């Protein structure tokens, strides 16, 4: 790795002390003069239509000031979601909101609403909706073909197959692609595995619920929200309120977790804004944990029929994916398609086919969750690779390596007949490092070891996912106080990247981090155009954008020095808060002095003239900051080498108790390839944090619905069972290692790592359980103790193999 001043060094992010001392203010911590509280009336049924609402008694309750219903909102085209509805499509969907002086008064008023709902047919399980005569979650249909709502029934299909746990592949689908010839590839294989696998839906469960507070002042709405992104939540917030972005000030300095459920904020956050306009007072909407369970989003479940052909050395000859996605009631999430793309990347089958359909259900809305589609791919396919390695007598890591992407790997759905490629992949290097550092031979030797009733299992899984976009803008000003103000439009999701990527600018200026001020979290603070704080895009996108802004500032410093002190700009260098003549450090200007000179010079130097290729949002921000100092402002125009993908390889050791079915995760290690590491501490946080979230997918987290009534019975935090810190291995340190190869197509070579880490955890744990079970694969997540014990005892399976939410 190059010799950097700041990049790759650990430091404490600017928000750390505020967070650990409780000084950090989240949306719920704000108060405004005369603030009201609002509570929501939620649908008690999975699908219904409001026949009548009588709010007379509710509005006469003490303290009540305003009500908001779906009738106050503009209509939208199906299957788009609104913040309130007269036709709830899932239990817990908000129908109306009442604002009162206190939260208790608002809740009491909700109880007094007389509401008459007509129950409508509902559907919890995507496969049941495809059955002939199966009901649809939406009145308009049960799926989307392109932009059209359609009603798909598999009339010609042998449904006894489904009942027996096999997904037929002759039903109607909406999406498909193929490269090579899958059937030929399968015919050429020495081993073909053909399995049907079920992956559950899993809610995001961020610790901070999607609370929001709003007030209006001089025609502008000040909106405090919980969101992952800042710049990219601004326009959606304006849409929720029906105003122009100029009339919204979005404040979101901290976010207590999003995992994809708050990428551009939460649509529900518009409710207090609209109520506040009606009431003429600030309105706070605190979302409770139970409400978060309903409106807080979830990863879509997927059922897939997967056929894989292997050569005797473990190399894939073909991969055939047929997927049915549990889409929830709104929009269309792309998980099932991303699952195919990521499978293509992780296992590089020369022949591959994808076919799939997303089916609406009356369950909470879905959204991207950390590696959407990627986690499902790993969870469903990694155990099949484990099985193949066993059957072929090939080492699990050798099988991983022989199929691993390398260089500018070509993969995924072809567009105009061409597959795209990644910017780089050093997966084999990452595996080789892990083999040594984690002592794979010793780890593998533990497989099958018995200690009383406990059997040890070892599993590995490769997980890939998107890790960066490009073309964003960087913006900074060096001001007469000598400090460097770096404007960040990405949000402070908690990953640290809002700070880590700002260091790229200081690296370009070769100046101490202590001289930097990061400005973030408030759209009135003149933020540049940014990527969403999601999809692990930020590290790549904004290390580049801030590097570009830093280089722009450096050039301007050199030009000013040359102008004032003589010589050419290139004879000057920048470091340690100064621009100085190369070879004669004494001759130069401090940043403070250079900032004064930039203001005096005006034009491009202080932002009065701006580059033409930057985004309009950055132009607005740059214009507002013009004249404050020397401005570094630039679009990321650096070269790109393809789609940016990062990779994580999980190594899990579990102990399965054959008498109780209990699983204890004993050890977890992870290797990675994400290019240059900006900050080892936050990098490790993402690698391991994602892994832990993956443990929950593998071991404990799921929804349970009563099928007769269509209602959620596991909506408590404890009954949903996300992983906890005590489910994390604690006897041995969770180690990590990185390939350490910079991405060759980025100036700093850094990519994100937040996404692939989750699948690595899920896949490795699932493989480890199968390993401990001597090759018993469940083909269903999560694998819980009842399933293990049922299998070990040879009892009848209590849940139909492909049944959702059970």
């Amino acid at each position, binding site marked *: 790795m190059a010799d950097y001043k700041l990049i790759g060094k650990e430091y404490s992010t600017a928000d750390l002390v505020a967070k650990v001392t409780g000084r950090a203010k989240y949306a719920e911590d704000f108060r405004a003069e005369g603030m009201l509280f609002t509570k929501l009336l939620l649908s008690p049924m999975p699908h219904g239509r409001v026949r009548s609402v009588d709010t007379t008694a509710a509005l006469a309750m003490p303290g009540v000031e305003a009500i908001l219903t779906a009738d106050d909102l503009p209509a939208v085209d199906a299957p788009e979601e609104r913040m309130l509805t007269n036709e709830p499509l899932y239990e817990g969907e908000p129908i109306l909101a009442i604002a009162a002086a206190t939260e208790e008064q608002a809740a009491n008023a909700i109880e007094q609403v007389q509401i008459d709902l007509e129950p409508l047919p509902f559907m919890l399980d995507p496969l049941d909706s495809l059955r002939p005569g199966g009901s649809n979650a939406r009145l308009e249909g049960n799926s989307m073909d392109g932009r059209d709502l359609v009603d798909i029934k598999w009339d010609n299909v042998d449904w006894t197959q489904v009942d027996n746990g096999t997904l037929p592949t002759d039903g109607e689908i909406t999406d498909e692609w193929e490269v090579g010839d899958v059937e030929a590839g399968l015919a050429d294989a020495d081993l073909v595995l053909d399995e049907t696998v079920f992956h559950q839906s899993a809610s995001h469960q961020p610790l901070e619920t999607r609370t929001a507070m709003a007030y209006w002042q001089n025609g502008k709405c000040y909106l405090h929200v919980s969101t992952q992104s800042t710049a990219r939540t601004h326009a959606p917030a304006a849409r929720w309120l029906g105003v122009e972005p100029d009339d919204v000030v979005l404040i979101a300095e901290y976010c207590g977790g999003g995992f994809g459920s708050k990428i551009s904020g939460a649509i529900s956050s518009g409710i207090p804004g609209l109520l506040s306009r009606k009431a003429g007072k600030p309105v706070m909407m605190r979302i409770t944990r139970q409400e978060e369970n309903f409106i807080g989003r979830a990863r879509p479940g997927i059922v897939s029929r997967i056929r894989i052909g292997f050569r005797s050395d473990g190399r894939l000859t073909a991969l055939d994916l047929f997927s049915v996605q549990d889409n929830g009631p709104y929009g269309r999430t792309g998980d099932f398609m991303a699952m195919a793309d990521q499978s293509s990347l992780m296992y590089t089958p020369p022949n591959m086919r994808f076919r799939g359909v997303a089916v609406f259900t009356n369950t909470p809305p879905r959204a991207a969750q950390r590696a959407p589609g990627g986690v499902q791919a790993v969870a469903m396919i990694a155990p099949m690779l484990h099985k193949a390695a066993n059957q072929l007598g090939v080492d699990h890591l050798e099988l991983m390596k022989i199929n691993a992407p390398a260089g500018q790997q070509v993969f995924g759905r072809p567009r105009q007949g061409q597959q795209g490629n990644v910017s780089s992949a050093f997966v084999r290097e990452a595996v080789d490092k892990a083999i040594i550092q984690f002592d794979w031979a010793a780890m593998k030797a533990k497989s099958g070891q018995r200690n009383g009733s406990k059997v040890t299992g070892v599993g590995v899984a490769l997980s890939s996912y998107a890790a960066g976009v490009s073309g964003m803008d960087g913006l900074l000003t060096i001001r007469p106080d000598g400090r460097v103000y770096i404007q960040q439009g990405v949000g402070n999701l908690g990953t640290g990247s809002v700070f880590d990527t700002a260091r790229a600018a200081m690296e370009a200026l070769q100046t101490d981090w202590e001289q930097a001020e990061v400005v973030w979290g408030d759209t009135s603070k003149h933020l540049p155009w940014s990527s969403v704080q999601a999809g692990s895009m930020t590290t790549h996108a904004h290390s580049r954008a801030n590097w570009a802004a830093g280089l722009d500032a450096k050039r301007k410093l050199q030009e000013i020095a040359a102008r004032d002190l003589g010589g050419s700009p290139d004879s000057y260098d920048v470091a340690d808060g100064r621009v100085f003549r190369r070879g004669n450090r004494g001759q130069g200007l401090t940043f403070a002095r250079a900032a004064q000179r930039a203001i005096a010079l005006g034009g491009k130097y202080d932002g009065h003239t701006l580059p033409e290729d930057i985004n309009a949002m950055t132009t607005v921000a740059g214009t507002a900051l013009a004249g404050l100092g020397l401005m570094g402002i630039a679009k990321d125009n650096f070269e790109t080498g393809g789609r940016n993908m990062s990779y994580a390889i999980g190594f899990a050791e579990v102990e399965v108790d054959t008498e109780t079915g209990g699983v204890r995760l004993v050890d977890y290690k992870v290797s990675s390839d994400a290019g240059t590491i900006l900050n080892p501490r936050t990098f490790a946080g993402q690698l391991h944090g994602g892994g832990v979230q993956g443990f929950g997918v593998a071991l404990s987290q799921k929804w349970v619905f009563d099928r007769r009534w269509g209602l959620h019975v596991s909506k*408590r935090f404890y009954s949903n069972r996300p992983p906890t810190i005590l489910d994390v291995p604690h006897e041995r340190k969770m180690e990590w290692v990185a390939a350490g190869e910079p991405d060759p197509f980025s100036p700093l070579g850094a990519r994100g790592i937040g996404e692939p880490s989750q699948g690595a955890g899920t896949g490795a744990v699932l493989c480890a359980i199968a390993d401990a079970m001597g090759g018993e694969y469940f083909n269903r997540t999560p694998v819980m*103790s009842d399933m293990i014990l049922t299998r070990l005892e040879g009892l009848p399976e209590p849940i139909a193999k492909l049944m959702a939410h059970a």
Partner: protein
Amino acid sequence: MAVIRDNMPAFELFQPTSTAEALGVLDRYGADAWVLAGGLDTWDWLKDRMRRPAAVVDLGAIGSLSEIRAANGGVEIGAMATLSAVVVDATVRESFGLLTESAALVASPQIRNQGTLGGNLGQDTRCWYYRDGWNCYRAGGNICYADTPTAMNREHCVLGASRCVAVNPSDTAPALVALDAELVVENQRGSRTVAAADFFVGPEVDIERMTVLAPGDLLTMIRVPATWAGASFYFEKSRDRQVWDFALASVARAATVSGGVVDDIRVVVNGVAPTPVRLTAVEAAVRGQSVSEELAERAGQVAIEGVKPLAHNGYKVPLLRNLVKRSIRSIEA
């Protein structure tokens, strides 16, 4: 009336500083009073507006109720002693490690710091239908939603069902039954002592209550007699997560052994029935025998005689068998 959950309505709060004062309030309000200990069970009910007591009696200010003291070779534990206090108490640990172990496995460290031993014994069932406000038998209705052909009942009972199939969720209850503990229950008219085994009420007796506590009653003390002091103990709780999870099944075992032969034994299981269940048939099969793998196997088989799993909890049968087997296997000869 529309339903709203997870938001606490106002209530009258009493914070008595003596037991006598508390009993006075409880007597005055009768069935309209609610006893608040650590609040872990209480707040769910109150926030979800399914229980609307006129008066909440917070026992937190009655210092004497959280004392733990050695007494005649046994130990007396105030009902308001926190689970954490029970876990760290030296007397309990030295003589009645069974209680220590069971208390240490309750929920999470935070919840143990707040939750009390009395509250852990008196808590209501966690049946997810009942807790979500479904109008079932236990809630005064006329159906059990957890025992229909489509019901989700993975965590429900395999023993002792009587219309209701909910289970008792307490971790400390089976330990205290095994230790022959006595519970002191006071009310305005006086004080009575109830054997731990008799404290819990099944649906065949009263489908709307989990314990003998009636309006006006207050559980004030848990008295563990010297009987099992220093005996051989075993506690195990099977659960889905390593923290903050109720037992799928648990077993508490106390035994005295001489010359390799089991003199006396208590085996109590929970999470499998509406009350903790003392397995007297298992005890009879083991008493007077020398410990062996065969004996443990036999004990496990005896434990599951007569069990009736529901649609989704068949795994609880081998789980119960194996937990009991392990509890016998673990007896130190």
